[in-house]
Structures are given as C-alpha cells and as structure tokens.
C-alpha cells in the first residue's frame, strides 16, 4: 500500500511534467493544472514517506523496466521514507508558491513548457533516486535528476553568465556521476550484481572498500557542494528561477546526502574511522569557507547558495562524527551523530527553501537581486519579511528554532570525544567543534547583514521603494515552511523518536535514551549528561515577555513614533547614508583576508571617486585553474596529430585497430 502510494506520487508528478508540454499554447495550464498535480503528488509522497518511517519496516518490489537481466528494484525503507517525505514537503511548498511566481515568465522569451516539464522530471528523478534499490536504477534516476536540473539552470539562457553557469553545472554533475558510477563498479565487481541487497551482503577487502568510499565520497561530495568541489553551486543555484533554487538547495543537495548515507552506512559494511576523519576535516572546512564566502556576497541568491555549502558542511560534520564513533566501536554515539546529521538535513531543507522562496518573493516584486539596492522591505512586504526573519533566525542556529536543535545535537555528539581511546581523534573532534562554533556565529553575522540591509532601514533604490507584498499562494508557501521551522524547533523529541527507526534499520542500534523522559525533554545520551526542554524554552520566553509587558504597560506614557532619527545630532540621514552590505562585512574581509582573493581598486577622476571591489573564491585559483590548464595543455599535445594529411589519419586508424585487436585476443 505504501509503495503503491509512492508510485502514485511519482506518476502524478510525471503527469504534471507531461501536461506542461501544452503550456506554451495555454499559459494558464501551468498554473491551474501542473502545479496542482505537483501538490497532489507531493502529498502522496509525504504520506508514503512518513508512514514508512513510522511503521519502521521496509517495502520492496521489482518493476518490469530496465535491462532484460536486471529489472528495476525499488525499496522504501526508513531512510528512503525520510528523504521521500522531505522531497514531498518542499515540493508541496513549491506547488503553492509556483502559480504566483511563474506569472513573471508568462510574458518572457523562454517557453513555459520547458519550465513545467523539467520541474516535474527533476522531482521525479529525485524521488526515483531515493527509492532505487539497485545501482543501475540509481544511476539512471541520478542522471535524470542532473540533466533535468541542467535545463532549469539554463532556463534563462539569454544571458551569457547563465549559460556559463549551466555548463559548469553540467560538467561537474557528470564528473560526480562518473565517480559514483565507478564507486558502484568497485562494489559490483566483488558481488557480481548491481542489486543493493547483494552489495550489502558482500564483504569487500579493506583496500577496495576505501577506494569505493573515496570515489563515492568525491562524487556525492561534489553534488552536495563540499569545499573544494563546490564551485558549481554558487554559480548554478542563483541563476535558476527561485522556486527551482529552493528545490536545488533544499532538496537536491539532500539527495546527494542520501546517496552518501546509503553508500557509507548501508552498502559498504564496516566503516573505517579514518574515513570519518577525512569527512570531518573536509566538512569543517566546507562549513567555515561556505559561511565566509557567503559573507562576501551581495547578490541575495548567491549568498544563500554559499550558505548551502556551509550547511552541507554542518551535515557532513555530523556524519563524520558518526563514522568516527562507529569506526571505533561506539555505535550508540555514532547513531547520535547520524541523527544530528539527519535532523540538520531536514532543517536545512526547510529554512533554506524558505529563504530562497523569500528571496524569490523579493525579486518578484522589486526585480532586484543586489542587496546594495534593497532596504526597508519589511514595511512594504510585512508577511514575507516576517517569514524571512524566521528563516534567518533558524539558519543562524538560534533557539527556539529548528537550526539550533540540530547544531545542539551535533555539539553533544562532539562533546563525547573523551570516550575515544585514540588521542589524535580526541584532538580532531574538538577542533571541528570549534570550527562549527565559529561557523554558527559567522552565519548569524551574515544574516544580520542580509536582514538588516534588505528588510530594515530605508530603501536604497526606486524600484525597491515601490515593492509590494506578493500574492496569497506565495505567502502561504513561506508561512508553511516558517511554521514548520518553529515546530521542529520546539517539538524535537517527537521527531527524533520517529527518525530513530532509520539507524535501527541501517546499523541495528537506536538511541534508547533520547526521548525516554517524556515529550518535553531531549536527552541524547542520558539525563545527567545533557537535556534540552525545547517547549519549556518557548514557554519561558513567552512568560518573560508577558511579565515584562505587564509591568511596563501600566500607566506609562505612549510611545512617540513620528520623530526624526537623532543620529548623534547630525543632519537627518537619507538612504544613501546608511551602512552598505559591503561595509557591513568589511571587518570580516579584513580579518580573514588571506582566505579570499580580493581585488580592490579606487579610481579618482576629477571629482568622482570610483571604488571597485571583487572578492573571488580561492578555490578557482587553487584547484580549478590548474586542472583546466592541464586539460588545455594535454589537448594541445594531442592536437599535434592533426596534420591535415589523410594518409597519416588512416595510419592512426590502422594502428588503433591493431592495438584493439591485440587487446581482445
């Protein structure tokens, strides 16, 4: 029944893609039918995912597709169910948001059908990846996801920058796909089959397991956006339409996380702690570099994209901790790390989609992407402003919202490092906890900047001054995600109790203690070690607030609203005298200057002073340019064969043929 519901979800979303073929003739079709079908499909996905998760069992089947000797195996277990429901939740928000948002494209140059078809196929691809139970179907679905999202990134291809971003995305998606395929190949060569249940049962020599792990970590890490493989992410995510950015950042990166968890915790068998250390180091660097580069951005969506790098880093810190603990025989602690990572996966999906939808709403109504031109949007778009604020607080990991709970769990896992025997491990884990702490505070810095510059103060340009609140559907989608951010922040115990079935299925151990003290208490290890009463925290804030207003409101004079700002007695400030986004993050640019590639120029012409500042990713110089140069050089060497002489070409062909024949015999 659950599996049938999952098929239904996939078929309905596929139907949404098919119906969009006619969207060019009938633009309203996209709004009235395609998004409705997405909504129906996503509800089915949520129901089937959640029911799998709650039941704690798994459902599998073989479909009559695929190769003659290898039919498609599908399986919905707790882990798949979790990601299935996660994709469903964000898709549901998109289905509410989309109809209002795509109006903008109805009069555009690009065909609407492309948007509808590939949105549907993209979501279908992700759902199929999650329920795939053999490597062949996994890779087919993976490619469907990558290719269809390429067309969405390239949707507004009239701008050269967008085409370049889309090409980079396609290239890196395929390098990562290739690497994952090779990883599966290593596993398959030992088991002789592609089906996951056979891969799972096969024991692999440690060396080959490490090779397979490295290949898949590279592949999934590139798709998830770990530093230094993240270069495509800040290019590709901002240029797609905003609801697609929400899907890509909120969900597609999570599908890569799913692949990594499936591969490492399920298929590879015994985890070596050394892998965990590698993951931990790369993840910590990703988290820190992600947030530092985010601080340097003033394109709103690009900034959010860099924050995805940061949050993927935080998720992988949890996974790395889990691997270290599991590799050293502390299974329960490993499970805690895994739960923290899964919790952050869900949380990041919620608040990052919320923020991208909010950014989309701002861009929709002001046609402005640049933070430096925004300001005062809270007064013009009060609902979007409120929801965006909730997103900002959640992503900055502040209580009582959801981001805090998952970071709290990650910290609690890291604080158990004293249980390890190995001194080096005991040293590395606190270091990564320090980087996580720094990341959290820098994220708060960045979101004070975003919210303060964009939503507070005075508008910095005319079209932003004229911005209006967006339509009902777009507000509803953001509101739903904002409410979920709060709910997952104050009721973590229920949720953790539900996802506890994932580690029970994967590694056979759950967390017995975490919800043992009633629904109010989150006690990851035991009640003496640490406890967090999330609902009580919210109640405490409410009570303190109530007491305060009760004391202060009685018999006091009213507030005066219409005075000029004082500003230390200087003249009345106008919008150009406000702090800018670049100025706001200047201290960070100075303190962490070595990590950025900064190009700052001041030009003086007569009476005008022009200040030009570009901050670029060091990863380009360090990793990508050498590779690109090497490829160029190799190509030049190869081009020596191109003499233009037909006889020599024929000679090459003959030589190749001979070598091939010799190889075969």
């Amino acid at each position, binding site marked *: 029944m659950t599996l049938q519901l999952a098929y239904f979800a996939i078929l309905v979303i596929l139907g949404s893609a098919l119906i969009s073929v006619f969207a060019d003739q009938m633009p309203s079709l996209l709004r009235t039918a395609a998004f409705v079908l997405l909504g129906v499909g996503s509800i089915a996905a949520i129901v089937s995912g959640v029911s799998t998760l709650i039941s704690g069992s798994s459902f599998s089947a073989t479909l009559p597709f695929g190769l003659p000797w290898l039919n498609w195996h599908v399986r919905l277990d707790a882990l798949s169910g979790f990601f299935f429901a996660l994709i469903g939740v964000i898709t549901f928000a998109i289905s509410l948001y989309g109809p209002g948002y795509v109006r903008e494209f109805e009069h555009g140059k690009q065909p609407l059908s492309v948007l509808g078809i590939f949105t549907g196929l993209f979501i279908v691809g992700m759902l199929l990846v999650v329920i795939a139970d053999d490597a062949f179907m996994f890779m087919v679905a993976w490619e469907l996801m990558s290719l269809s999202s390429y067309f969405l990134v390239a949707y507004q291809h009239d701008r050269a920058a967008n085409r370049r971003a889309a090409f980079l995305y396609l290239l890196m998606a395929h390098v990562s796909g290739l690497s994952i395929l090779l990883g599966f190949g290593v596993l398959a060569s030992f088991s002789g089959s592609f089906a996951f249940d056979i891969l799972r049962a096969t024991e692999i020599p440690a060396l080959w397991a490490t090779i397979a792990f490295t290949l898949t970590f590279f592949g999934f890490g590139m798709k998830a956006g770990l530093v230094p493989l993240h270069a495509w992410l800040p290019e590709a995510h901002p240029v797609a339409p905003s609801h697609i950015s929400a899907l890509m950042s909120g969900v597609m990166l999570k599908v890569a996380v799913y692949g990594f968890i499936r591969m490492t915790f399920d298929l590879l068998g015994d985890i070596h702690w050394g892998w965990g250390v590698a993951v931990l180091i790369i993840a910590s660097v990703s988290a820190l570099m992600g947030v530092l580069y985010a601080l340097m951005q003033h394109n709103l969506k690009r900034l959010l994209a860099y924050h995805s790098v940061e949050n993927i880093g935080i998720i992988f810190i949890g996974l790395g901790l889990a691997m270290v603990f599991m590799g050293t025989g502390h299974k329960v602690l490993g499970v805690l790390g895994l739960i923290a990572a899964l919790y952050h996966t869900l949380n990041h999906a919620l608040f990052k989609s919320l923020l991208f939808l909010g950014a989309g709403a701002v861009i929709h109504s002001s046609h402005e992407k640049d933070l430096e031109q925004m300001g005062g949007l809270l007064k013009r778009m009060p609902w979007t402003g409120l929801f965006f604020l909730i997103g900002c607080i959640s992503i900055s990991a502040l209580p009582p919202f959801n981001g805090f709970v998952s970071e709290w769990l990650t910290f609690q896992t890291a604080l158990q490092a004293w249980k390890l025997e190995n001194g080096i491990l005991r040293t590395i884990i606190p270091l990564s906890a*320090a980087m996580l702490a720094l990341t959290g505070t820098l994220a*708060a810095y960045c979101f004070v900047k975003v919210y303060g510059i964009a939503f507070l103060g005075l508008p910095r340009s005319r079209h932003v001054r004229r911005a209006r609140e967006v339509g009902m559907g777009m507000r509803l989608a953001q509101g739903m995600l904002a409410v979920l951010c709060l709910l997952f922040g104050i009721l973590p115990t229920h949720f953790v109790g539900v996802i506890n079935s994932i580690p029970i299925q994967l590694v056979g151990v759950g967390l017995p203690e975490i919800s043992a003290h009633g629904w109010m208490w989150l006690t990851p290890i035991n009640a003496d070690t640490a406890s967090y009463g999330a609902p*009580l925290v919210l109640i405490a804030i409410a009570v303190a607030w109530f007491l305060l207003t009760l004391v202060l409101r009685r018999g006091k004079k009213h*507030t005066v609203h219409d005075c000029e700002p004082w500003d230390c007695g200087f003249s009345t400030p106008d919008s150009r005298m406000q702090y800018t986004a670049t100025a706001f993050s*200047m201290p960070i640019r100075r*303190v962490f200057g070595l990590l950025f590639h900064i190009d700052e120029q001041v030009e003086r012409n007569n009476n005008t002073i022009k200040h030009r500042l570009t901050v670029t990713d060091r990863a380009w110089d360090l990793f990508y340019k050498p590779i690109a140069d090497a490829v160029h050089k190799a190509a030049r060497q190869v081009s020596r064969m191109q003499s233009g002489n037909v006889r020599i070409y024929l000679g090459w062909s003959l030589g190749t043929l001979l070598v091939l024949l010799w190889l075969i015999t």
Partner: protein
Amino acid sequence: MADYLNPAAWIFAFIQALLFAAAAPLLVAWVRRVKSRLQNRSGPELMQPYRDLYKLFGKQAMVSQNTSIIFRAAPYIVFCTTWLAAAIIPLVVTQLPTAAIADVIVLVGFLALGRFFLALAGMDVGTAFGGMGSSREMLISALAEPAMLLAVFTVAMTAHSTNLSSVIEHVLNSGIILRPSYLFALFALMLVAVAETGRIPIDNPATHLELTMVHEAMILEYSGRHLALMEWAAHIKLMLYGVLIANVFFPWGIATNFSTSAVAIGLLAITLKLILLAIILAISETVLAKMRLFRAPQYLNLALLLALLGMLSHVILEVGT
C-alpha cells in the same frame, strides 16, 4: 533534570532570577565606584544606576519614523533573552530546574538571539552609526562566542555534562585540583567576558565618541523605557559573565541544598566573589587603554587560542589518566 518537579526548586529558581535582575545594576555601580576611586574621583553613588533606570522608565519613548516593528520589539527580546540566560546559571544554589531545561549551549544561544535582535535594531534606524555598531558588535561576538563555547566545553567535558548545575557540583566534588585546562579556560572566558560586555579594552561603556563606540552606537536611537530595558539587559549581562566565571571555576560556598544556612552562605559567597571580580575588572579597566577596532580580532584570537589550548590539554593530558 532530576528535580524539575520539585516546587521548592522552581520557587528558588524564580527568586534567583529576580535577584539576578535586581542585583545587576548594583554590580555595575560597584564597578564604577571602584574605578572612580582608582582614578581619584569620588564617583557616583551605588544607587545611581537604579535612579537612572527609574528615570528612564518614566520617560516617553521616542521612536524614529524610519523604523519598523523590529526596533520596538528588540528591547523586550534583548531583555528577555538576557534575563532567561541569567536564570539558567546557578547563582546561590545548584540543582536548578532551569539548568536542566536549558544547558550551557542554550545559554550561549540565548545571548546570541538577544544580540541578533540588538544588531538588527541598530540597522533598523537607517543611520550610519547604527550599521557601524551592528557590524562591529557582530564581528566581536563572531570571534568571542566560539572562544566562550570552547571554554565551557572544556569544563563540560571534564564534568561529562553540559548542565551547569551538574558541572558546578562536579567541580565541588572533585575538590581542589589544579587542572591546566581549567586555567586556560578561565583566562579565555575572562577575555571573552570583557569583550562581550563591552568593557575596556574592546569597547568603552562610558563614551559616546562617534568613531569608537560599538554597543552605544547600536542603542543610540533608543530612549525612555526602551533604553532602560537595553541598559538593564547590559547590566544583567555583565553580572551573568561574572557569576558564570565565579561559580564554574570557583564554586566553593554555593549551596547544594535548600536549607536556610546553606542558602545564606551561598548568598554571602557569591557576593564576595562578585565584589572581588568587579575589583579585578575595575583595575584592568583603569590600567588598560581602549584598543583600535582592528586590534580586537587579535585580542579575541588570543581568547580563542587559550580556549583551544584548554580543550586540547584536557583531551590530551587529562582524559584517561
């Protein structure tokens, strides 16, 4: 979390929170007084902060027309979060139910939430000073908060708990042992406390010099009861760091049960500890000069380094021996 159903514990927790809020201005007044004496001034009376707060609460609050709801809500949020953070810390007795609800990570989270809104309020007015103050405050806290977390993690790892009550009881029970990790953590936390409460050498609470102010720049536009709440929250924050340092590193004297004599000794002990810490703060403020803003990161890096050293010396030297 063993005692969270004990009504006496809740009553104590509530009284303690009220005491925290009531005593905080007195501590500030004491620091000012000692500082004045060290500088050969007579200084304001000990009741002066209370008079200031009373005066401000009675005044009309002026709110600029440029601002949004954030500006008006921020004083309440800042005060609530700071006060709740203070309520987590055992002041006179341990075994607080509030310490089980919210551990030391939540404490840092509360302070961060308050600061988030404080910084937003600074940007809400749309003046240059507000943004400047917010940017600087976030820079300082971005570097100070990790140091603080690491310092408390060091202690928490020793006690195998992040619950402040348990941590303090663990330190009490283990007797007087000189742990290198504690020394590092203590120095780190003291440096952080100075930075986070906006004291010299990072910020000067007594000046409104435009180019150097940090905290004052953010609350420049506040008046009336809004300003009173902001000031009061700042007072509580100073006391919060004082109590945290005093009770976590030198917990001796704190009451571990609710008997009258134990509580009286606990009250006396914390008063003495705070008086001493305040004198140390006043001396350091007198002999040091305020640093340039871009020297502050070096100062905070020192705090981070000390905290990290504390953590590492704990996991390398002390675990398993």
